[in-house]
């Protein structure tokens, strides 16, 4: 289990491969489920050119640790990885990565889905968007539909 806050643009697929190699679980996992949230150039009917992600550093780290521990208690997981960007983010940049490894598929799939929902609703991050009308804080996360 591993998680970290990433201040710079990162390649989510490289991060997964690197983590998977270090985890030494190569022939033990039969299932890998991942979710990547990335920046769109359009939100609520307005073009967005830049995003700034603020967080509450002391709380986010502890919160991501707790999320991974809760997922591991609830599902039979071999490993998990969470990476979350902060700072300036450009369109198409990845913002969050969740990856779950398990022997059988439902644990990885269900834990991955649960982790992103929990993170979206509870982890202390805040997005500020730059549009042609200036900057605006995103008011709240949607239900993802």
């Amino acid at each position: 289990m591993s998680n970290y806050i990433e201040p710079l643009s990162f390649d989510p697929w490289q991060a997964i491969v690197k983590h998977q190699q270090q985890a030494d679980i190569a022939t033990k996992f039969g299932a890998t489920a991942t979710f990547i949230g990335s920046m769109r150039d359009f939100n609520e009917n307005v073009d967005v050119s830049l995003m700034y992600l603020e967080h509450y550093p002391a709380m986010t780290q502890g919160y991501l640790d707790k999320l991974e521990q809760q997922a591991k208690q609830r599902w039979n997981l071999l490993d998990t990885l969470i990476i979350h960007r902060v700072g300036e983010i450009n369109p198409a940049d990845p913002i969050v990565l969740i990856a779950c490894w398990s022997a059988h598929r439902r644990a990885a799939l269900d834990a991955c889905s649960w982790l992103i929902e929990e993170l979206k609703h509870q982890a202390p991050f805040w997005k500020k968007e730059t549009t042609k009308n200036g900057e605006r804080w995103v008011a709240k996360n949607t239900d993802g539909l």
Partner: protein
Amino acid sequence: MSIQVKFFASLRETVGIGDININHVSSAGEVWDLATDKAERPLNVLVAINLEYAQFDSLVNDGDEVAFFPPVTGG
């Protein structure tokens, strides 16, 4: 007694304070009132004490860190 108070994101901009230290308070609600000079409290404001979600009537103790912030929008 010393309580470390933090405001984040849009709430920091609205209140006009990032960090402040205050004394002589017993609940998160009193922390808000003293730190903001009794500013109206937005309905959706969240509070954390020592990095854990809490309520406005939760008690605070010497050395605690109390944070106020708007609904989270990460992920």
